[in-house]
């Protein structure tokens, strides 16, 4: 198979898997406890890294943009700039990339080692559909957790920006938050939640697909994990571009 055929084939297989997982969520058997456990691992487990990334990204945004804005006498707009770039772009994308690195790799490695040690075959032999038992709970947990993590990253990021702007440049807290509030519209927030939902689907399906299609023993597990992280990261960044444009089209061009 050449590269193009292979890519199309993998797209087809990944889509079919996601469709089967969705069917598994609608018609039983459903695995509630498994889903809750995955939400704990994926959501609560990623909290620390997401909070740290969010805080310092917001901080560095303020650090880097304040001098430029001050040059034009617009330093009062720092809050707006930090908030808008976080809610529209950096929050969703950075959170998705961090979750890909932490959760996507873990999913691919876990399912991959289950595949090479024949546990997936054993599961099917014992009458369980691995897509329902393993893929569906992970996908659902990601779909719920990632938007929540993104919102948290946005909030902490704005706080980080506020901290940097006030403590390093002496901007008043009031000025920062007023401009931040003026800058963000409801559409930004809606778009900022739609994006991570799509990213969750991308990360979950790619990681599960790569994991379940591992071959070649322990070396294969490593290979599958790397591929899952690389593919998911690239697809997240590429789709972010098209999503941003599509959201502009659907929600209307932003006023600022």
């Amino acid at each position: 198979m050449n590269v193009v055929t292979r890519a199309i084939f993998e797209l087809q297989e990944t889509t079919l898997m996601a469709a089967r997982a969705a069917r598994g969520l609608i018609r039983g058997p459903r695995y509630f406890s498994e889903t809750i456990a995955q939400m704990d691992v994926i959501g609560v487990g990623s909290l620390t890294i997401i909070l740290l990334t969010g805080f310092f990204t917001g901080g560095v945004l303020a650090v880097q943009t304040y001098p430029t804005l001050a040059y034009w006498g617009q330093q009062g707009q720092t809050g707006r700039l930090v908030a808008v770039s976080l809610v529209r772009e950096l929050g969703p994308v950075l959170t998705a990339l961090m979750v890909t690195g932490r959760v996507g790799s873990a999913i691919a490695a876990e399912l991959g080692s289950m595949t090479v040690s024949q546990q997936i075959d054993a599961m099917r032999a014992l009458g369980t559909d691995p897509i329902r038992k393993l893929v569906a709970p992970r996908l659902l947990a990601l779909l719920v957790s990632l938007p929540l993590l993104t919102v948290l990253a946005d909030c902490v990021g704005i706080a980080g920006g506020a901290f940097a702007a006030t403590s390093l440049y002496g901007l008043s807290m009031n000025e920062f938050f007023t401009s931040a509030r003026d800058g963000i519209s409801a559409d930004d927030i809606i778009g900022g939640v739609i994006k991570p939902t799509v990213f969750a689907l991308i990360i979950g399906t790619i990681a599960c697909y790569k994991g379940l299609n591992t071959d070649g023993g322990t070396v294969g597990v490593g290979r599958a994990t790397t591929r899952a992280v690389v593919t998911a990261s690239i697809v997240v960044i590429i789709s972010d571009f098209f999503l941003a444009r599509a959201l502009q089209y659907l929600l209307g061009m932003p006023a600022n």
Partner: protein
Amino acid sequence: MALSTTESNQLVSSDQVSQNAAGSTFAEVDDREREIPAIEFRDVLLAFDDRIILNKLSFKVSKGETKIILGGSGGGKSTIIKLVLGLLKPDAGRVLVDGEDITDYNEAQMVSVRKKIGMVFQEGALFDSLSVYDNVAYRLHEQGRPEEEVEQEVRRMLRFVSLEDAIDKMPSELSGGMRRRVGIARALIGDPKIVLFDEPTAGLDPPTARTICELAMKLRDLEDVSSIFVTHEMNNLDYLCAEYAVVNEEGQVVFEREGERLCLINTKVMMMKEGHIIFSGTDERLRHAEDPYIQKFLRGR
């Protein structure tokens, strides 16, 4: 660690066995149901890309029969087992389980077929995240059985493989032979009438390998289970083809060798080479076969 048999009485009481034995002589011969093979392959062809794995394979496994599949590595032995379970689909030909054509079944339809089949994997394939108890109970938990019933069944199965003490351990704490035996207990839960063994003794020390073969013999002779036993170890063949399990007067399971007056016919050997069957018949005929590959396989050179 020889199975000194007392624990296996829970599985079949001596009364039951004698009744089964008495009933089996004539009643079973008349029973039309028994004429339907447990597993049947009709001209099964399977290829990955350009490589042919199974080339127009046809064979049957009768009810109560053990079919030992011998052959070198990469000869398509494990593939046969995956086809029976529907984990793979053939490119051509039909696969029948219990007279039912499963070739075109989807995953949902396979669920009822897989209920009849127990599968013992090469390395045990235990779920790492679950304890021994949960591994063995897996099938019953999935069926949503009440916990009391599940525990009773799990203990009975672990007694059968004499591992009741390990019930709360995690798979990582078990030795290779113990993992294999837990795998057997997991395969046997729900009393399947067909059991598939995929190289169950590979990499085990001789006494443990013997224990596994004894379990297979007990299933064959006392439980009327049909099985496919994939192996490349000749001592497995010696045990399975020449010995049988009976319950003695004290109610204990003992293993006796076939002799002048009794020859085991419920165990057949099939030899595979590059996707073809090069021999099919009893072990006695295998030992006298003139094919150079078979002779090399038997003698090791």
